[in-house]
């Protein structure tokens, strides 16, 4: 079992998932803690189809439904891990269930004023990858997820070029004033307020920070050409997450599972994994 690449990925997926679960619980972000009473319709064609089922309205002011949804969402990765460990051939059933639950939970959860759907993309896409039957299919879908991750980050940089934010010297000042007006008005003497205020009062320094973030995002393009720098991209991404938290106060940690695609690209796999995939080619 130790040499099973898919099992290894599921394990790491669960570790990240449950670490983030504790983080969310600490911040009162379980459904049973948030206790939604209204929703905010998102501009998303699939979400509108989901809303037609009425599940999001069933979850309003309904304590038992929150507990049911929380239990299903937070239990399934572990159940899937156990299922896969004990019976690989039928484990796609629990992967299927996890896919369904993740989609329903997140579609409803992000309709309530807590977070945006985009940040939860890893929990939406990973179950698709787990559905893969056979080692090579899994490996190829996992690799596809790596390209998605690269695209996601590069596109964020491209948007800044296309929309023109990066060409405005006052961009970062404007962003910080908009993002942090509550912090700056309620807690002006706090260390984080002073740091943010420094970037606002020095627009050129702030713009250089914005430009650096844009270049960092664009640098992920190298991942389309070679896997040689994937470890460096991981460090850059973690650095980005840290600064996003410290300067923007945006906790984007839910995308962390996607880092697994850079950490376990096939050039980082142990040699025996390579031979396993070569061997499994006939399936």
């Amino acid at each position, binding site marked *: 079992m130790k040499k099973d690449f898919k099992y290894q990925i599921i394990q790491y997926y669960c570790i990240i998932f449950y670490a983030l679960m504790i983080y969310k619980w*600490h*911040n*009162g*972000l379980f459904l049973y*803690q*948030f*206790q939604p*009473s*209204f929703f*905010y*319709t*998102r*501009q*998303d*064609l*699939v979400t*509108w189809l989901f*809303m*037609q089922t*009425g599940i999001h*309205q069933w979850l309003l*002011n309904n304590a038992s439904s929150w507990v049911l949804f929380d239990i299903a969402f937070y239990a399934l990765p572990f159940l899937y891990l156990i299922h896969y460990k004990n019976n690989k051939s039928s484990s796609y059933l629990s992967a299927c269930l996890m896919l369904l639950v993740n989609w329903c939970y997140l579609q409803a959860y992000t309709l309530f*004023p*807590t977070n945006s*759907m*985009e940040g939860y*993309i890893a929990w*939406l896409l990973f179950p698709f990858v787990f559905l*893969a039957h056979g080692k090579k*299919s899994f490996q*190829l879908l996992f690799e*596809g997820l790596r390209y998605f991750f690269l*695209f*996601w*980050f590069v*596109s*964020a940089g491209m*948007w*800044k070029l296309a*929309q023109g*934010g990066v060409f*405005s010297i006052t*961009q970062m000042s*404007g962003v910080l*004033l*908009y993002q942090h*007006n*509550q*912090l700056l*008005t*309620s*807690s002006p003497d*706090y260390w984080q*307020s002073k740091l943010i205020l420094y970037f*606002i*009062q020095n627009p050129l320094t702030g713009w250089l920070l914005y430009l650096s973030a844009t270049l960092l995002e664009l640098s992920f393009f190298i991942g389309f050409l070679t896997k040689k720098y994937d470890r460096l991209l991981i460090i850059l991404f973690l650095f980005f997450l840290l600064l996003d*938290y410290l300067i923007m*106060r*945006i*906790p984007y940690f839910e995308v962390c599972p996607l880092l697994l695609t850079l950490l376990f690209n096939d050039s980082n796999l142990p040699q025996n994994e390579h031979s396993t995939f070569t061997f499994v080619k006939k399936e």
Partner: protein
Amino acid sequence: MYLKRLFNHNKLLFGVIVLFAAVQLINNIRQDIAISPVYSYGMYSSPITPSGSYIVPEIFVNGKQLLTKDFTPQQWDNITLPVTKFYAQQQWNQNQWQQDIRRLLPFSDSLKFVNNITENEFRKWYAAHVQAITQSTADSVSIVFTNYYFDGLSFKKASNY
């Protein structure tokens, strides 16, 4: 090449991945409505110039203002997002229904897409919500929207309303 290996391995998987990539690209280029799991990641990419004024929601529990610094970013979002979203949701949801949903989908009933919560119900819910986050007993919870302007050095209060 990845796509070639995928094509040789499984034509169906190849089709699914190429379709997903194509929709992702086209959706980004057209800057269209999202189609989960296809989204645009363009947050703060449009030029944003410092504004003349900022309307800031301030929450008071038992007459004392809650301070952003005392909460994690997620906890603070949990405190303020319900307020800002509640006061925007009625018009926003109605616009979504009028302008896009009923135009693009064959639905005739707006009830699934708009809320029927009243302001009194929201305020009652919100008082309990804030008490749960702050883990305190609140005799009063009030929401004030204050108008601030930035004078180049710090925020200054303009007026309350």
